């Protein structure tokens, strides 16, 4: 069981994802440099948070050209589980692996705080251990997490059950107040049509140990460990 954590110049949650894989889950983990052309034989690929290339252009807009992204695309196309967290989610949308785009937060400020997200779908490798409708307390930390897609794209996402996480209150109700950044339909995370590529703005890797205020995020990583160990993606690994 091996996690590959992709490191773009400017990634800054790479160590955090690595720590969860290695020290919390006891899995194998490797950093993969963005210029690398292999994924180190990993079972799961993590695109971590941060400010790839400084986010001086649109977030994720430069990172999508990194050589490693060709490998990530191949891995995803073969059905391998890929998760993009925060900046990683932004990279996935820029790379065309997930639909939509991120606007600046409605507040026009960077926001770092705990929020509640509801698990809308459990048939993805990163949510299969969750209860349907389970509410997780996980932090966000972003300036551009205001999810946007054209109305027909949103409709398609909803129809295909691709919205995996939604901002809600503690009771799991998707209210306007519970939406921290203005995302359409309170969307906090989604998957591709094949359901193996997941992106989300909140940081589950920051909520994997009780000492940090919440361990609710761990279930995403446990899910994918379960998925992989049950052989769901055996054909992907070369």
């Amino acid at each position, binding site marked *: 069981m091996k996690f590959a954590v992709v490191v773009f*110049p*400017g990634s*800054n*949650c790479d*160590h*955090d994802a690595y*720590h*969860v894989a290695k*020290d919390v889950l006891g899995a194998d983990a490797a950093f993969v*440099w963005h210029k690398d052309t292999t994924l180190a034989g990993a079972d799961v690929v993590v695109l971590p*948070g*941060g*400010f790839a*290339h*400084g*986010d*001086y252009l649109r977030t994720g807009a430069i990172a999508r050209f990194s050589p490693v992204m060709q490998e990530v695309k191949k891995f995803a196309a073969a059905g391998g589980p890929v998760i993009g967290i925060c900046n990683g989610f932004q990279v996935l949308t820029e790379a065309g692996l997930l639909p939509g785009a991120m606007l600046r937060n409605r507040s026009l*400020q*960077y*926001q*770092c*705080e705990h929020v509640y997200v509801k698990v809308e779908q459990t048939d993805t490798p990163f949510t299969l251990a969750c209860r349907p409708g389970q509410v997780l307390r996980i*932090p966000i*930390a972003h*300036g551009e997490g205001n999810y946007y897609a054209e109305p027909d794209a949103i409709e398609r996402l909803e129809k295909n059950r691709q919205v995996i996480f939604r901002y809600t209150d503690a009771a799991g109700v998707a209210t306007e107040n519970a939406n921290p950044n203005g995302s359409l339909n309170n969307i906090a995370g989604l998957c591709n049509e094949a359901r193996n590529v997941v992106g989300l703005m909140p*940081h589950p*890797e*920051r909520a*994997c*140990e009780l*000492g*940090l*205020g919440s361990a609710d995020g761990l279930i995403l990583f446990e899910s994918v460990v379960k998925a992989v160990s049950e052989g769901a993606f055996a054909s992907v690994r070369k």
Partner: protein
Amino acid sequence: MAVIDHQVLERHGVTEEEYGRIVEMLGREPSLTELGIFSVMWSEHCSYKSSRVHLKTLPTTGRRVLQGPGENAGAVDIGDGLAAVFKIESHNHPSFIEPYQGAATGVGGIIRDIFTMGARPIALLNSLRFGSLDEPIVRRTFAGVVAGIAGYGNSIGIPTVGGEIGFDESYTGNPLVNVFCLGIAKADEIIKAAASGAGNPVYYVGAKTGRDGIHGATMASAEFDEKSAEKRPAVQVGDPFMEKLLLEACLEVMKSDALVGIQDMGAAGLTCSTCEMGSRGGVGVEIDVANVPQRETGMTPYEIMLSESQERMLLVVKRGREAEVERIFEKWDLHAVKVGEVTTDERLRVKDHGKVVADIPNRALTDEAPVYRRPMSEPAYIREVQQLSLAALGAPAPAADVFRRLLASPNVASKRWVYRQYDHMVRTNTIVVPGMGAGTVRVKGTKRALALSVDCNARFVYLDPFRGAQLAVAEASRNVACAGGLPIGATNCLNFGNPEKPEIMWQFATAVAGMGAACRALDVPITGGNVSLYNETDGNAVLPTPTLGVVGLIEDADRVVTRAFKAAGDVVILLGDNRDELGGSEYLKVMHGLIRGVPPSLDLDRERALQHVLVGGAAAGIIRSAHDCAEGGLAVTLAESCFDTGLGVEANVAGVETAAKGFSDIATVFAESASRVVVSVAPEHAQDLISRASAAAVPATVIGRVGGNSIRVSIDGRIVIDESLGVAEQIWSSAIGKYFEPRKAIAQDHVR
């Protein structure tokens, strides 16, 4: 060659007398480039020429101190073979001129100081001071500074885990932006900023050199006036992405043994890094500015040597190992360029295409820079402001009304509007987040954690610099002790006015003396820091603000304590005494617009004993919450302990006797007497804590219980404050944000 006349000297901030010394040291007239080099190295900012004689009196050694002042940062031993490397630094002047970039580059600068020591930076804090938020210019500065800190820290991925913010009119035209950074290094792998080995190549890496920031150090050594905005070109622009690359690449280079020494280019840029590295190593450094990567064409050696462009590092590499080092930087898309080499002759020699343009003995720029014992005299204001006649203020408002006013005061109110903009969780070490007490980070790979606090009540220092500085040390140490951290080291940032005024110099010297005395008594050595003088606008100095950053060591991270009450039914205990001490209080400022009286008394032995009770109680796992009494006194402390978990409190205390009739209620709940902490414990542990306190001769009084949904405070059984938790929290949490609600702010501007 340009003629160096009176005007040229004035522009460089060099006095005629200092110029005489330069000529004497060189044995000739300096070139303009050399004059520029002297002017920045001899500026107050770099030379500490006014402060040095006083700083020498501070305690800087101790059992755990691995590195005291003199390097890029201090370091203390935290066990497990690890060192905490930390320092605080000011970026006041640039932050007034250009708030966003001024603050951002302040963050960038202190981070470089930490990783230059071979430490991985893991936490940032800041101590900020502004004028009143009622002023549009202050709102602009405040919002810009906060955004700048966020912009840099968030991008580079180092969490801002705590800090403090104060407001006073004296900072309107001269905000204070002090940034603290802490990193972790292996104790035996701390890297020094010294050059050695004649013939070893000197490398430059990072951003290209531009014309930005020329004379930044000299700017920071002069007062502000209405022309200050014209100095904007002297402020640099930060590039956190570049620094992130430098950080990672430098840490990677340091893992190899190809590196001899490294220093960042901060104030005085290339000049400071070359002569200081040479001086520390007892060698010389020779560079050719033609090899320095330049952003603009036609830059002169003068400009290149004095530029303060950000995100640049100077390295000395072992000869023969160049390719190794270059390869690591290339991986990070950085280009390391050889700009010179180490020599034996203890001189800084600068060439331009091979022609010598500056040739100065290192010592002339460093150890032999001027030192002034400036004249001092006690300011006349002190005796006047220490007079406080409460009786003359008339009958005080009811405590319940005062309570609401204090909760709404920006000094007391929640700073969530600010810290929500800071990534305070990245690196997943933050076990106490901002707004919950001392920011605390765990040390991965160990059981330990570090509690960090920066503090200074500048009103107290203004009223009595000696005691005020002692109180700052006590408060910062007490805050880390509340979290369960044993204070093991400190760094200071001394923000004062113009030292050429004897009254300011007296404030400075007296405060440093007080700080030293308190640090000795509390066993908290100062391992480094920064002095910021000339914090004046149009001749008016800021309140003297000697800020202290303290590092506290928590042996068991699982036992960390926050300020929030944890469970209904817990017993609330006050450690320490309530006293008739309203001098310098938030009460006087908010209700009467006064900064008067004498600051609270401080018994350093009592303070130390209190801190030991806190650390011991936390380690034993019996203290469930701890929060010290500061601005707003006991009532505010109780309220803040309620807010996070939404648990109310019911407390009853004995009224204090006051000299002024009618002020007993006010003094009892709003005085800011030192050495007091409100703790909560499970009922079965109350006696244990009280016994521990009494063994240490620390007063401990059960004052109430956690529970309910109101904050109810009685004096001798008579309710004086009974506020619903929801209302109190609403007042407290919205006080700062409401200044930035767009429509309201516009309306206020319009009225003005």
